[in-house]
């Protein structure tokens, strides 16, 4: 890697961070994810004014405020709906949707399926901590069935949602898993996801050390995926079905053509708009 003496200030990851200070708990994995996202933007040499970060509700969904890009902090579970609309209307923008496991897989579960199916060219980053953090620790779709807490005595006993398998089955064009404790590796995953046309899904294990302190052990559980990405959905499905949730890396890269409706004509008169609504 070469380093030249500066003649003009480059766009650094720091330039993609806003002056708004995160209110996440000390030790939260989302700090590192913010760092990874901004590093990915810098790696791709984007400019803040050409990027939009869209989120729903939850701890991790606060992320748009912490970037200097355009942001939309939407309603619970609707990050992908808003991001889809934005990307379709403004295909020139780089659109990132971000949020947590509750927002994305439960309240927004239906949007997740159809965003994968539509394959609009955007990237969805999910900071998965297997718990509803903002509302103080209810089990989320990815919470382990035996997680015993005051809010789920004895555990829920419910099988966990497997977002990567669901994404594959629903048609996502790029599937990866990262870990917040590996911020540079995760930055590269996000950058790869953004480079890949179509709907890219990056699930990031991001510990909630306040409500789930045992997740500090994740750093000892994660490991690079033993084999590289495949473009064969059947092979990817087999791999993901036997996955224990701690393999890190790009797991599937498809080649489906992204969905992008033709640009609508710019209307010159109000009457033309009204005519479109005529029954």
């Amino acid at each position: 890697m070469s380093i030249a003496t500066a003649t003009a200030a480059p766009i650094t990851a720091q330039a993609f961070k806003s002056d708004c200070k995160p209110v996440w708990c000390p030790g939260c994995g989302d700090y590192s994810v913010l760092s990874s996202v901004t590093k990915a933007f810098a790696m791709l040499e984007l400019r803040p004014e050409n990027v939009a970060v869209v989120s729903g509700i939850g701890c991790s969904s606060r992320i748009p405020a912490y970037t200097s890009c355009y942001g939309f902090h939407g309603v619970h579970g609707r990050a992908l709906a808003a991001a889809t609309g934005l990307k379709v209307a403004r295909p020139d923008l780089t659109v990132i949707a971000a949020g947590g496991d509750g927002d994305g897989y439960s309240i927004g579960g239906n949007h997740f399926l159809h965003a994968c199916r539509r394959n609009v060219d955007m990237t969805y980053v999910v900071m998965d901590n297997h718990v509803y953090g903002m509302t103080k620790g209810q089990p989320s779709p990815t919470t382990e069935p035996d997680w015993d807490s005051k809010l789920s005595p004895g555990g829920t006993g419910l099988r966990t949602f497997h977002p990567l398998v669901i994404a594959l089955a629903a048609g996502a064009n790029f599937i990866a898993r990262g870990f917040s404790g590996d911020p540079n590796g995760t930055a590269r995953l996000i950058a790869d996801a953004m480079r890949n046309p179509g709907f890219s899904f990056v699930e990031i294990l991001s510990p909630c050390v306040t409500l789930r302190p045992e997740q500090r052990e994740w750093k000892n559980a994660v490991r690079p995926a033993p084999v590289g990405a495949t473009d064969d959905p059947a092979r990817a499905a087999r791999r993901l079905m036997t996955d224990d949730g701690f393999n890190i890396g790009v797991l599937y890269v498809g080649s489906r053509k992204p969905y992008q409706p033709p640009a609508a004509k710019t209307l010159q008169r109000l009457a033309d708009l009204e005519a479109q609504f005529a029954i």
Partner: protein
Amino acid sequence: MNETRKTIRPKAKAPRSARAQAANPGETRAVNEAGFMARAWAMEVDAAERYATLADAMEEHNNREVAELFRKLARIEQLHADRILEEHLSRRPPALPPGGLQWDRGAEGPETADPGELHYRMQPYHALEIALACEQRACEYFARIARSGAVPAVRKAAKEMAAEEAEHVRLIEDWLKRTPAPRKDWAHDPDPPVDID
């Protein structure tokens, strides 16, 4: 699928970051002294920025004592970065690759603290332990380059940097000795976040 996956239970004592334990064979990317010092400068800037972020996090959670300590560490690292810039880089910040430098360990710079090590009830002693680990990694990083097959000017500069970092290690160790060690139940919260009446 992970239907049978069980909750991972914490061990009695969480080990230090896996990053700190990772083997990191000789890092000799810098081919000349200016390139090496640019990496050293970037390492210090990253460390300073990270300490500032950690200070913000602790301040947000009203742990002002630890916040102030991280703020102080950020100032120390920034001073070190400024000195490198002045003495070795003609006061001109080097242009870094988009997305920042890549390090052999595949993670962040050797002196950059891991935000995952924080705890909302942590005490200054814990913050100093984090700082000590960072300084030790920085010292090892430079010492490794000093022992490597890099050009003599880089090895000489690396040796000097390693000596400086070793001095920082000693300073933090002294600081730790003067800082009260936390009680065993320091993390106990009488009003824990997960309890809801």
